């Protein structure tokens, strides 16, 4: 065949194929700059250790939950039970964990198992029961919320301070280590057969099956991973707040989806990166701080969050479209 072609460099390919991710990172940078400027305007100093610690500790549970959400959305599904699962493990951690290394390890493992079990339930109902993910996880969201209330009927409980220090140190931004760990694990995940399968079934389930991808296992596995991530997010949330609340996770169902969308992951599946979702989680956390320093009445906070979300998504779509046309 003819050899008349124009080859792009690997670098150009990377940029063109990762426009949504790069835009998410750009959005993070822009939010960071706006935040620093507003902070300087109010406090007449550059944000320091305290601010970095507080922001990263607040963003971490969302970043973890959004990573799990990303994996399900990549398969073409959605997980609405994220918030309910976080409620459960948040309550379990606050009620049962004691200040001894043995107890911490034990209950951390229990949390992971709870997450895996909840994810397995979602996955089996979706993949074997052939039910819509949105329906299944809406139902399990309510079920998980009910279980959480049973474990911790009123807010309270106590998370051991040493556990808080380990996960979300209130004095230093050690939470960033976990963020780095998520990114590292993601990069490894991308190079495993399971990771490829997740992307493949999100691209085209029939084609993936014809290529020998185990579609059933990949779909169930995605929900299990998402369950584990949600469970860990609930545990980290308990560590930051040093106590438990059986409703504190509820908001995370929608914010995790918002973080994924801001991260440039396609809601149709098959395209996107958890790194973008982590960036999205940080953008949403920074936004709360930006609104605070912009002296927005906290009553109107969610109004402005919504306006920002629409604005950011429209902007990234427009920029992405322009870039695609330009190349």
């Amino acid at each position: 065949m003819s050899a008349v072609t124009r080859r792009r460099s690997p670098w150009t390919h990377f940029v063109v194929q990762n426009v949504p991710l790069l835009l998410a990172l750009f959005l993070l940078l822009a939010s960071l700059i706006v935040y620093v400027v507003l902070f300087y305007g109010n406090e007449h100093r550059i944000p320091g250790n305290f601010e970095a610690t507080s922001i990263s500790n607040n963003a971490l549970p969302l970043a973890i939950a959004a990573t799990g959400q990303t994996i399900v959305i990549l398969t073409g599904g959605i997980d609405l039970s994220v918030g309910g699962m976080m409620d459960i493990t948040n309550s379990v951690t606050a009620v049962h964990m004691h200040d001894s290394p043995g107890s911490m390890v034990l209950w951390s493992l229990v949390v992971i198992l709870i997450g895996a079990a909840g994810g397995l339930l979602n996955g089996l109902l979706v993949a074997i029961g052939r039910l819509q993910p949105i329906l299944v996880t809406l139902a399990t969201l309510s079920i998980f919320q009910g279980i959480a209330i049973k474990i911790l009927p009123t807010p309270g409980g106590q998370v051991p301070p040493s556990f808080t220090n380990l996960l979300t140190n209130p004095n230093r931004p050690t939470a960033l280590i976990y963020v780095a760990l998520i990114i590292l694990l993601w990069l490894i995940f991308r190079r495993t057969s399971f990771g490829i399968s997740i992307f493949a079934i999100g691209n085209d389930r029939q084609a993936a099956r014809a290529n020998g991808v185990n579609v059933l296992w990949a779909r169930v596995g995605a929900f299990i991973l998402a369950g584990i991530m949600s469970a860990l997010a609930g545990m980290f949330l308990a560590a930051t707040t040093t106590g438990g609340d059986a409703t504190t996770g509820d908001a995370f169902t929608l914010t995790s989806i918002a973080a994924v969308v801001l991260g440039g992951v396609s809601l149709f599946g098959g395209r996107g990166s958890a790194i973008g979702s982590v960036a999205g989680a940080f953008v949403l956390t920074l936004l709360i701080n930006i609104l605070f320093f912009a002296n927005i009445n906290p009553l109107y906070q969610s109004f402005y969050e919504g306006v920002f979300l629409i604005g950011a998504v429209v902007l990234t779509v427009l920029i992405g479209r322009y870039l695609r046309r330009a190349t």
Partner: protein
Amino acid sequence: MTVKESASQPEVPAPTIAAAIEGRGIFKAFGGVQALDDASFAASFGEVHALVGENGAGKSTMIKIMSGLFPPDSGIIEVEGREVDLRSPVEAQKLSVGTVFQELTLLPWMTVAENLLLRHEPRGVGGLIRRGDLVRRAEAIFADLGIEHIDPRALVADLSLADQQVVEIAHAVDRKPGIFFMDEPTSSLAEREVEWLFRLIRKLREDGTCIVFTSHRWREISSIADRITIFRNGRNVATYPAMELGEDQAITLMTGRSVSAMYPEPPSLEGQEPVLEARGLSGQRVEDITFTLHRGEILGVGGLAGQGHRELFLTLFGVLKPTAGQIVVDGRPRKLRSPHDAIRAGMGIALVPEDRKREGLILPMPIADNLTLPILRRVSRLSVIEPDRERTLVRQMFERLLIRASSGRQLVRTLSGGNQQKVLIGRWLLANTRILLLYDITRGVDVGTKHDIYELVLDLARQGCAILFYTSDTEEMAHLCHRVLVLREGAISAELQGPGIDPEQVVAAAVRGSVRA
């Protein structure tokens, strides 16, 4: 590889050489439709075996069953004389059965390299995929197969349909199948790529591979097949050595009726009333094109693929903007800013594309809704559709176009390719279109329906439509068109006056003087 060796051992004293793969007494029903009804078929190593028949004759179903995509309701499949139970395409691959299905099995938002080596990725430390090696391996595969123009780093979604098909073929060939099924591999390929594929097939045949393929283009079949098996109504009706089967006989066997002439004569032109003119039209891949299309005329636009045909059609339909020149409709220069302008009454230009699924029809909706989509205002009062008026118009179209369907409520998805094409044409007729841009509308359409479409095109011309006609089938172009313009590198390089153009003339004009890089 062991498969091929054992097959070529001469000391095997079998009275009849065991077939490489054989299906016997296969039945398969989908819902109420009996797709295969006691079908049998066998192919040997070292032969190219063509399966031919109308759409719905069961060729594709047979291939899908013999390559493990779904099981038969009953019947036996043997690979090298051993009965097998193929539970999945992967299972079949283990028995050295490889397949290029009609529907692409590529993953659009992954790279070419990722697709080529899916589930066979090069691994490094800890079993992790080595992405650098992935690209190098893909490049090596392409180099082996003589593919130079596809970038392994590109996303499949960014490739042309033809290149996607080439990747699909490379993907299957790389698994080194001893038995290789290809369901309509050439339907989206241009001549150049078909040549490439046939070179590849000949090489595989020399290596002893058993190749089974389907095609609707007789020229391709007769040029490469060793044996031909004809399917009709879910059953194999005959198998012939390719040398002993002529096209007319094959068509008779396929359709069950004698086709005296495949190509009907175009009606003679009365008068020369210009309807659509291009004057010095230039634009994307289109160079200074001037022509006049008359009322009732079928004007062919021929030439090798990729010489600007597509762009010319899209420019005339208002999708692409011309950089110079004029489009003149009924003697008045017109500006087409979008397809909406082209469709509008007074212009009446419509484009019927080859990819009817992506560029025209709404598959999950009924035929009637698809037909009346652009004229909803005409069939409704106060924005509410009047079923009676719609039904009358739809019935007229059914009669005029000979659409084969149970009723207007049947979903377009369930129609054959040819009938889908008729629905698309019918839609534009209802919208009072007078200028039809027909772009490769018989691609992937079976012989019987092709004939219907030819009749329809000529009928439209007889009724006064002006038709600009592109097809990848040169025979078709030569027989149907009053005149043929040959495009080369976006410019008109020759004009052939019909009727009775010799297909060889078109090919010659297309190739003559063309410089190969």
